[in-house]
C-alpha cells in the first residue's frame, strides 16, 4: 500500500514537472509568435499534460489515424498552442518545428489546423467541435470500437447555440464514449463570463440534459488525472463532462489578474521574466 502511494505520488510529481515544462515552452512559443492566445493556452496545461503523459489518451504518433486511437477534438483551437510542445515531445513531429512557429513554410500557426500531425480537426471557429465529436462517437459505436472521443472546449464557447444542439443529441443518444472537458477559465474576450451571461449552475444545466457532470480544480494535477482516468473507463450510458475550474493565464501574474488577458501579448522581455517566475 505504501509503495503504491509512493509510486502514485511520484507519478503526480512527474506530471507536475511536465506541466511546468509545457508552460515554459508555451511562453517560449509566444515569444516567437506574439499573436498566439497565451492566456487561453495556459489554463488548459494540466488537462493536456494528464491526457498525453498520464496514459489516458490512446494515440500513436507513428500512425496518426490509427483505428485504435482515441479521438481528441480541440474545440477551443486558439487555446491549444500549449499542445504543440507536447505533440513534439511525444513524437508527432520534430521539436525543431517549434522554432518555426507562424513563419512561412511552417504548419504551426497562431491557431492550430488539421495539417499539424496530432490535430484531428481545424477549430479556429468556435462551437463546432462537440457536434463533430458526436458524429465520431456515433460512428465508433457503429464500429463497436472501444476508442473514446475527448473534446476540449472553453466556457465562453458555451454561448454558441450549436454547442447546445450537440449537448442535447449526446444525452439523447447516451454517448458514453464521449468525454467533454470544459476549461472553465471564466473569462471570455471582453469580460468575465458571469458579467456577460452567467452560466451557473453549469453542472446542473448539463445534468438536466442527461450528462454526468463533475467539477474539479483544473490545476490540481491529481484531480485532473484521476477524474479523466475514471471518466475514460466509465460506461454508464451517459456522456460525461468534466468542468475544470481554471485560471486564465495561469502562471503568469500580469495575465491572471487581467480581465482582458485573452488578446494580451507579452513583450519579449516580459516573456523572459515570466519564464523565470514559473513554478
Amino acid at each position: 500500500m505504501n509503495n503504491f502511494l509512493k509510486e502514485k505520488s511520484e507519478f503526480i510529481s512527474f506530471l507536475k514537472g511536465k506541466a511546468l515544462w509545457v508552460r515554459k515552452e508555451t511562453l517560449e512559443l509566444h515569444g516567437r509568435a506574439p499573436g498566439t492566445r497565451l492566456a487561453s493556452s495556459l489554463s488548459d496545461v494540466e488537462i493536456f499534460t494528464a491526457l498525453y503523459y498520464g496514459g489516458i489518451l490512446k494515440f500513436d504518433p507513428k500512425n496518426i489515424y490509427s483505428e485504435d486511437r482515441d479521438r481528441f477534438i480541440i474545440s477551443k483551437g486558439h487555446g491549444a498552442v500549449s499542445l504543440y510542445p507536447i505533440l513534439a515531445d511525444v513524437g508527432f513531429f520534430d521539436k525543431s518545428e517549434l522554432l518555426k512557429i507562424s513563419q512561412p513554410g511552417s504548419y504551426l500557426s497562431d491557431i492550430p489546423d488539421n495539417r499539424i500531425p496530432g490535430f484531428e480537426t481545424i477549430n479556429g471557429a468556435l462551437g463546432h467541435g462537440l457536434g463533430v465529436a458526436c458524429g465520431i462517437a456515433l460512428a465508433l459505436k457503429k464500429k463497436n470500437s472501444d476508442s473514446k472521443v475527448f473534446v476540449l472546449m472553453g466556457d465562453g464557447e458555451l454561448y454558441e447555440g450549436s454547442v447546445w444542439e450537440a449537448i442535447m443529441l449526446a444525452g439523447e443518444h447516451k454517448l458514453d464514449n464521449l468525454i467533454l472537458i470544459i476549461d472553465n477559465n471564466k473569462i471570455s474576450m471582453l469580460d468575465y463570463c458571469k458579467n456577460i451571461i452567467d452560466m451557473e449552475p453549469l453542472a446542473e444545466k448539463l445534468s438536466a440534459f442527461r450528462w454526468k457532470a463533475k467539477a474539479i480544480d483544473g490545476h490540481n494535477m491529481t484531480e485532473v488525472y484521476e477524474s479523466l482516468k475514471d471518466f475514460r473507463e466509465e460506461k454508464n450510458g451517459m456522456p460525461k463532462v468534466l468542468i475544470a475550474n481554471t485560471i486564465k493565464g495561469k502562471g503568469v501574474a500580469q495575465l491572471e489578474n487581467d480581465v482582458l488577458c485573452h488578446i494580451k501579448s507579452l513583450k519579449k522581455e516580459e516573456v523572459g521574466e515570466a519564464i523565470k517566475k514559473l513554478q
Partner: protein
Amino acid sequence: MNTEQPKKVMRDVLIEAIYKKMREDDRIFFVSADFGAPALDKLRADFKDRFINVGIAEQNLVNVATGLAMEGFVVYAYAIAPFLTMRAYEQIRLNCSISPQIRPININLIGVGGGLSYDVAGPTHHCLEDIGIMRILPNMTVFSPSDWKLVENFFEYSVNEKSPMYFRLDGKSVPLIYENVNDLDFKKGFYELVKGDRVCLVSTGFLTHRALKIAKEIPGVGLVDVFVLKPTDASSLFDILKKYDYIITIEEGFTNNGGLGSLISKILRDNLSDIKLKTLGVNDTHAFDLGDRNYLHKLNNLDEESIVKEIKKHLD
C-alpha cells in the same frame, strides 16, 4: 416529351436509391434535420442504426454528419434547402470546404426545395441564394438537376467521390428529360439537349423543362442544361456556346450573384468572347407576392411568354 412519362419527386427517387445502396453497403449513413419524405419511412424503419434524426438543428446536422464522414462513412445529410445552406453555412464552410482540403471526407448535403419550389410558403422557404453561396466555397461540388434520372445517376457518382457535395433538389414532381440519354458526364457537368445555331438557352434545375419546350418549338434555338455548377468543364462548355451569337441564362435564383448567369458570364469573359448575354432570374428582391410558381415566374420574366419575347428580340 409525352404526357405518359412518369413524374417523380427528386427526393423520393434519391432516398429510394440510397435505401437500395444501404442494403449492400454498410458504410452509408443518412442524417436528417427532422425532415421527411414518403420514401424515408422505410429507410428509417429498416436502418435504425444508420438513420439519425438530429432534430430541427441544421448546424448540428452538418457537424454530426462531418464526424461520421471523418470515420470513413459515406454520409447523406438531409434538410430543407434554405435552412441547410444558410442556417448551417459556417458549419459547411468549416467542415465541408476548409477541413476537407487537408482531410477529405465523403459528405453529401441534400437540400430539398431549391429555387421557388415552396412557392406559396413565402420568402423564408424560397431558396434563391444557395447556388451562389455554395459555389463560392472551394472544394465544394454543386449539383442542380433538372430531372430524376440525373439524381439517380449522380447519387451513384457521389458514393465513390470522397469530397463534399451539395444536391439542390426541386421540391415538386418533375417528368424525365434524360430518359434515353446514356452519355451523362458529371465531370463535364452539362448536356446540350437541343442543338441550335443562333440563340442558346442555358438553364439549370426546374426551369430546364420550360426551356426545353421553347427550344423544341423555335427553330435556331439551342439548349444547354447545366447540372453541375461547380466544378463545370468550362472549356467544353465554351466549345458549344461559341456556335451561337446570343445566350440567355435561365435560373431560379438571384441573378448575377454567383449562380448560373455568373458562371456563364465568366466563361464568356475568360474567352474574350463577344457573344451577347442576357441573364434571367430573380432580380435582387424577395418574393412576398402570393401565388403559385407560374405566377412568381411571371413576376420575374421567367414565364414562357417572357422568355420567348427575349428570344424573338434577336431572331427578328
